[in-house]
């Protein structure tokens, strides 16, 4: 297992290198010029050129790429063109809120979606099944920002139960941390809950038709034990896969959710950086997201061995 993990980690390197080259090239050919944004409307072309020179943006592609790669190899993601802060500092400032949002959403999804999917499979064809799947279609269809605005209107403005916006670190208390994340997590989790519930139902339906389930019933095992201990464990591989793939959904959704709820996370940092053409920040974030995605896939593969002992690496 250890050698497998090491092999997978080493295999990450070419993936990251390709991502790095792709992102750098894309930004190089994309229209837009941070020097123009910085210089402002009053600036002369000479001023813009001087700013471009001071930022090193006038250098040839290969030299810019080479110096960026060299810095990355030394663990330096560079400095933001606009804020003059290290990219790693900026990512560090934003990591907490995004991580919190993703963890709460993930927990909410697992706690809600898996039981819903199990119940829907158990009651397949019944009103309960149709109601749960109807909810899933609804969750799939509603854009994150619509759900976000609706939740903010109802629970923050009308009922005044929760705040509209912002983020409080957990160090300032669990409730202040959680109260800022409940509405965003529900908004972000809707699609995810719908997806996982549907996959859970499909996987469970297949497992519930197996002979060993019939045997378990014949032996007189309780319904809960059959569903959640015997059936769910055997249906877990596709569910775990979807939960893992869904993390990519969460990263995408976090961009919108963080804007709607004014959460100072990586999603908003990404948008701000793209709109301003803050190249070092964009490159740093994309690299980070790519690394996280590769890592999540690795974790999913490892999780398979936990839920299905027949899988060995």
């Amino acid at each position, binding site marked *: 297992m250890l050698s497998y993990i090491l092999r997978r980690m080493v295999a990450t390197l070419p993936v990251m290198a390709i991502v790095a080259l792709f992102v750098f090239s894309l930004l190089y050919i994309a229209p837009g010029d941070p020097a123009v944004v910085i210089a402002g*409307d009053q600036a002369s072309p000479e001023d813009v050129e001087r700013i471009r*020179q001071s930022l090193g943006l006038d250098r040839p592609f290969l030299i810019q790429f080479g110096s960026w790669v060299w810095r990355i190899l030394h663990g330096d993601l560079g400095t933001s063109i606009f*804020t003059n802060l290290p990219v790693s500092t900026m990512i560090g400032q934003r990591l907490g809120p995004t991580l919190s949002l993703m963890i709460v959403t993930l927990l909410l999804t697992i706690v809600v979606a898996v039981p819903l999917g199990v119940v829907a499979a158990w009651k397949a064809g019944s009103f309960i099944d149709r109601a749960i799947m109807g909810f899933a279609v609804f969750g799939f269809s509603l854009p994150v920002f619509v759900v976000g605005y609706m939740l903010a209107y109802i629970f923050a403005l009308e009922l005044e139960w929760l705040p509209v916006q912002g983020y409080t670190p*957990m160090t*300032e*208390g669990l409730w202040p941390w959680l109260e800022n994340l409940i509405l965003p997590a529900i908004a972000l989790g809707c699609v995810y809950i719908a997806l996982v519930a549907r996959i859970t139902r499909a996987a469970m339906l297949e497992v519930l038709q197996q002979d060993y389930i019939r045997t378990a019933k014949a032996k007189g095992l309780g319904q809960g034990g059959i569903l959640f201990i015997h059936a769910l464990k055997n249906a877990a591989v596709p569910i775990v896969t979807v939960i893992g793939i869904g993390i990519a959904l969460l990263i995408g959704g976090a961009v919108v959710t963080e804007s709607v709820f*004014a959460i*100072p996370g990586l999603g908003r940092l990404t*948008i701000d950086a793209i709109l301003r053409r803050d190249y070092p920040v964009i490159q740093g974030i994309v690299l980070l997201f790519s690394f996280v995605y590769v890592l999540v896939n690795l974790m999913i593969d490892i999780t398979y061995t936990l839920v299905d002992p027949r899988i060995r690496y």
Partner: protein
Amino acid sequence: MDRRTVLKGLAGASGLALTGGLSAPAIAQGAAARTLRFVPQANLANFDPIWGTQYVVRNAAAMVWDTLYGIDSSFQPQRQMVESEEVTDDGTTWTFKLRSGLKFHDGEPVLSKDVVASLSRWAARDPMGLMIKAIQQELTAVDDRTFKWVLKQPFPKLLFALGKNNAPVAFIMPERIAQTDPFKQISDYIGSGPLKFAKGEWVPGAKAVFEKFADYVPRQEKPSWLAGGKQVMIDRVEWVIMPDPATAAAALQNGEVDWWENPIADLVPVLKKNKNISVDIGDPLGNVGSFRMNFLYPPFNDVKARRAVLMAMSQEDYMRAIVGDDNSLWKPLPGYFTPDTPLYTEAGGDILKGKRDLDAAKKLLAESGYSGQPVTCLVAQDQPITKAQGDVTADLLKKLGMNVDFVATDWGTVGSRRAQKTPPGQGGWNMFHTWHAGADCVNPAPYTAIRANGDKAWFGWPTSAATEKEVTSWFEAKNLDEEKAAIARLNTAAINDVVYAPTGFFLSYTAWRKNVSGVAKGPVPLFWGVSKSA
């Protein structure tokens, strides 16, 4: 017991179990009342007001750095850090004395050498500063509180230049910071103004914090814009960046923020209905909408084509697209200068008044030789103002029978593409939309967009000798009457040659909670004089 209390109780109980009792310290009501939470117009992405000239940077910098002079609401430069000034009879040698007791945020006194370094950095980037630099003989510190500026020829608008609130503003920084290359960003934010920048709490894109500077010595005069006594009544100003207007509106209604700089017109009716919120015009100088035509390439290299567009355009259409149905938020603008300011004029503006004559405009366009070639129109979709104007222009050009190549893009792309002088089909352009702060359009000094000196002019590179002649006349004017006469001639010349197309004058609201008092109108959000009750 309400639902929120139950939720709090449940989460609190689980929180105790999970964190071993981590809890938030209770914030005293008094402390909350001394913190003003403000939603600015944009993100504070950098904090060097000379290097980056965005309005939001200027607005934040106005709290942190003071100026030698400040322009008041009657557009007059008033002494700010300066105690007195003398000028020789020939107008070439200015001697300034600083007020006593001025301190930087690190406790060091403000000295003449700091002023000299600050003005040198500013003059390398500011259009008026560059004009002064071009005629400068020397700028020297005479003693700790006195400095001298010797010019080769008089520059009557010198005090205006030192006090103007258009970016870049002549802020006074410590010498060690001001010696930074003006094309490189500073990273030390020691200021001279009434509030300190809390660098450690700065999260670009999310939050910027400013704390009251206890050693600031305000002037005794009443505050007026950037002039007068800057008495800070609160301990802390927190800028909360909110990119989504609906979220900002909800946060203001919920009392999570205290002041929102510029709510969008669509949300103002909701805010006006809320009994806890005050809404009023924020900046009385408003904005001038505009689109610029490229003088280098057909069809707009011909003045007839430019006039045809002016003749056909309806400013009301543009303004309604920007501000909606609220008539108090816009005015027609048959000229280029900000309404209700001393130099405002409608001289020569008849082509923009009255019923629009589409047939005459089509005839004039045909006379220009336009024969259906594509007109590349850049429209930034991520800026509501440019998007609204772009949609109206596309409709206008189609009505005129023009072949519109509508380039829907983002502001960053427009920003770089508009600098291209290549033909429209090769990465260039024929038209783009923007707007100018009314504060920049009160006279020609900060008004880059009105200049028509060809290759050196702003994007579109208009050439109009008559316009340039009157810009010079204004700079040389010795009194207000001479200035007014020069501006009337300038307005006429600029409209005749269609330096750019003004789409109208529009205002925007600002909104604050009623427990906040002292919010004053001005071209910059003014935090001195503002207080907050619990």
